[in-house]
């Protein structure tokens, strides 16, 4: 029989105010299963832990119940203390008499009684606890980074700098993401390309980074520390090693398609380089529009390619990689403009999106950095910037704030004013959200010195009259309606997870929220980890954020991944499900129930087996098993029924 000690914590007044800790101590002293009981003001303090350690030695205890706060807070504190005193840590149980007792009751009599019952259930469970040790597994010391925007680039650089290999997967033909499309970045107005391209070059030159562009993650198998990844790479119709960027191919290519990098404001050929600083530096063929795949139709580029880099017969490849950690940096897209019909996007060429305006402002953009409107190339003298296009509209569009639009729209107005000094920018907003270092100062400066006129109120509709865009809005500050004849309208479109995020998350069994963004393990304390072990989140895949925040999160994710990669072994809680093979009928119900893919039917033996590393101990299989063959370690049915008996008897 175990010699069990019970330690009742006052938690200052948190417990003591509602639970009569002295009475609990005196009354439970007579309990046949309790060898020793005492109470103390703060069990989690050093003296409190010493009390416990000394009692284990002096009273020769072989089990301990600490009646205190929730086990999510100090379970590990007390389990470590127990180990230091020479006991197995699983011989320590927490009875939660704070969150589940003192904090939720007012009457001392009732709370004291309930505290006693809770402690007795913990004692009953502890009596049957096994001594366990953590499960360990080796670690593959490489990381996978999905996404080649600024988030993925930063994470890859940090991991590679620490000396570990990185496999990087990017869907598009070049690294760079949306950041490479931007003109200048708030609040310092750094040229976006100028600060991003050095990082892109660094990634491409780093021997620790293996880059796969035109590629997508097809499947991931395995578990934390030991993932097997299948990457699908589009056919490499242009061999990047042979292409010498002479540009003869795109000169002769007869196919024109809208240029994605220019957000459709310019055309590109079917064989193209996305932008001059593209990484990898190679031309690439867009399979969907290329005529050359049909040998009768075309073949012009191959004819002129002196480097003989073009091979129309190249096929899609599946690349297999083994990694220990996976960083998700799949980025964002703009909310579809077509959803805002009242603003006339698509109908009027001079109603454009924020990313299109970034290209217009950009020195390498379709207008070489001159502000000219798409319809007739005129310099617009009055431009309306409309904030919250799709954002903060839970009834019709997106419920959330896209976080960066206030800042970039103010930046747009400012840059517009720099380029068109006699022009007038108008920003229609519903609130200005400029939290961040030097952010509000940036907005205020635009209003005070750059003649940006802020108008508080949502725009109701936009229509065209002659060559002007007529805007019907309101100024809620003066309470007056507002009408404006603008030459151009820029819609600050909300941010949504990048196309395909949903299917990607399903494939990898990652959680996404109602808004479609990846969900972090804890909104405050674990913001860069996924709830799925071994996956880390960076950038706008997790939610709207600006560049500094994205870079910080990417470095955070990299550091978490590095902590994993730098350990020899990973350890996993031994509180997992087991299968009693004598009872298991091999029905497989639990296999389908397990949310972690931790169970597999061994058809030869006719029983189910558990993958210890994958099992998270959620207990779903136990409730599903019709033959009582599933048991959870230290949460066996017998233990639970002993606990229930005590509750029922009191």
């Amino acid at each position: 029989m175990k010699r069990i000690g019970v330690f009742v914590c006052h938690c200052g007044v948190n417990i003591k105010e509602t639970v009569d800790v002295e009475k609990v101590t005196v009354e439970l002293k007579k309990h046949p299963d309790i060898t020793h009981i005492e109470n103390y003001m703060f069990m989690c303090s050093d003296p409190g832990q010493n009390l416990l350690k000394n009692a284990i030695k002096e009273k020769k205890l072989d089990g301990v119940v600490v009646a205190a706060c929730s086990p999510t807070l100090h379970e590990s504190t007390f389990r470590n203390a127990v180990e230091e005193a020479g006991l197995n840590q699983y011989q320590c149980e927490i009875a939660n008499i704070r969150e589940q007792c003192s904090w939720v009751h007012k009457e001392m009599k009732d709370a004291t009684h309930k505290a006693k019952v809770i402690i007795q259930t913990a004692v009953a469970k502890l009596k049957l606890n096994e001594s366990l040790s953590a499960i360990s597994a080796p670690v593959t010391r490489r990381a996978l980074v999905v996404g080649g925007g600024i988030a993925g680039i930063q994470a890859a650089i940090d991991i590679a700098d620490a000396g570990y290999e990185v496999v990087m997967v990017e869907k598009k033909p070049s690294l760079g993401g949306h950041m490479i499309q931007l003109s200048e970045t708030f609040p310092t107005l750094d040229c976006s390309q100028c600060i991003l391209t050095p990082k892109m070059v660094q990634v491409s030159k780093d021997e620790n980074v293996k880059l796969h562009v035109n590629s997508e993650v097809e499947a991931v198998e395995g578990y934390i520390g030991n993932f097997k990844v299948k990457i699908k790479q589009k056919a490499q119709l242009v061999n990047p090693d042979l292409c010498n960027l002479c540009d003869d191919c795109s000169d002769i290519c007869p196919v024109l398609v809208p240029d994605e990098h220019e957000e459709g404001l310019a055309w590109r050929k079917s064989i193209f380089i996305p932008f001059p600083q593209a990484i990898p530096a190679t031309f690439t063929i867009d399979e969907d529009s290329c005529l050359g795949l049909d040998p009768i139709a075309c073949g012009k580029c191959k004819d002129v390619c002196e480097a003989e880099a073009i091979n129309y017969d190249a096929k899609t490849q599946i690349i297999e990689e083994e990694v220990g950690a996976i960083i998700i940096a799949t980025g964002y897209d703009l909310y579809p403009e077509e959803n805002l019909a009242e603003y006339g996007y698509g109908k009027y060429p001079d109603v454009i999106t924020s990313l299109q305006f970034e290209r217009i402002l950009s020195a390498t953009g379709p207008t070489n950095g001159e502000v000219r409107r798409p319809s007739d190339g005129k310099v617009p003298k009055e431009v309306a910037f409309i904030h919250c296009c799709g954002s903060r509209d839970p009834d019709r569009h997106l419920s959330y704030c896209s976080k960066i639009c206030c800042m970039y729209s103010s930046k747009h107005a400012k840059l517009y004013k720099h380029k068109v000094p006699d022009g007038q920018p108008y920003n229609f907003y519903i609130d200005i959200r400029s939290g961040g270092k030097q952010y509000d100062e940036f907005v205020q400066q635009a209003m005070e010195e750059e003649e940006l006129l802020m108008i508080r109120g949502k725009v109701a509709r936009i229509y065209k009259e002659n060559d002007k865009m007529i805007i019907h809005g309101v100024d809620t500050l003066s309470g007056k309606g507002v009408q404006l004849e603008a030459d151009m309208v820029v819609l600050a479109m909300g941010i949504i997870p990048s196309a395909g995020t949903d299917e990607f998350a399903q494939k990898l069994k990652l959680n996404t929220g109602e808004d479609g963004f990846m969900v972090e393990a804890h909104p405050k304390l674990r913001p860069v980890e996924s709830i799925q072990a071994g996956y880390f989140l960076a950038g706008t895949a997790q939610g709207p954020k600006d560049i500094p925040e994205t870079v910080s999160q990417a470095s955070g994710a990299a550091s978490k991944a590095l902590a994993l990669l730098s350990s020899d072994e990973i350890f996993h809680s031994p509180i997992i499900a087991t299968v009693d093979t004598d009872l298991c009928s091999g029905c497989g119900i639990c296999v389908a129930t397990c949310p972690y893919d931790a169970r597999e039917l061994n058809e030869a033996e006719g029983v189910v087996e558990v993958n210890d590393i994958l099992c998270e101990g959620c207990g779903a299989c136990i409730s599903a098993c019709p033959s009582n063959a599933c048991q959870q370690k230290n949460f066996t049915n017998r233990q639970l029924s002993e606990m229930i008996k005590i509750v029922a008897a009191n």
Partner: protein
Amino acid sequence: MPISLNRNKVRNELVKRIEEISAQDVFQCYQCGNCSSGCPVIDYMDISPNQVMRLAQLGEAEMILNSETIWICATCLQCSSRCPKGIDVAKVMEAVRSINLRNRDGIVKPDREDIEDIDELPPIALVSVFRKKTG
């Protein structure tokens, strides 16, 4: 009628004059409303002090010139001392009053015989006129 905006109207001559006389930049105002919340006579005004600033930003100086507010204002300087952006709102009010008084030269004559009329005028208007006449 909605306010019609255009680049010639924003920062028009009248607004510029208000700014010049008061030596204040009305575009510094970010509409926090602290001037209005501290104003002891706001309940007697037709537009609030922050709306005066707002209309100036929108180029609607005429609306301010024709308001009751500028005459209700007692120049107690609560607004000026409260403004987080350091705008002397009372000076803006004073500037608008000056423009009005200059436009309607001679509507108040201190030596007028009809004393009852003078009694009905807002005291601040009289003060302004006396200051102008005697300064």
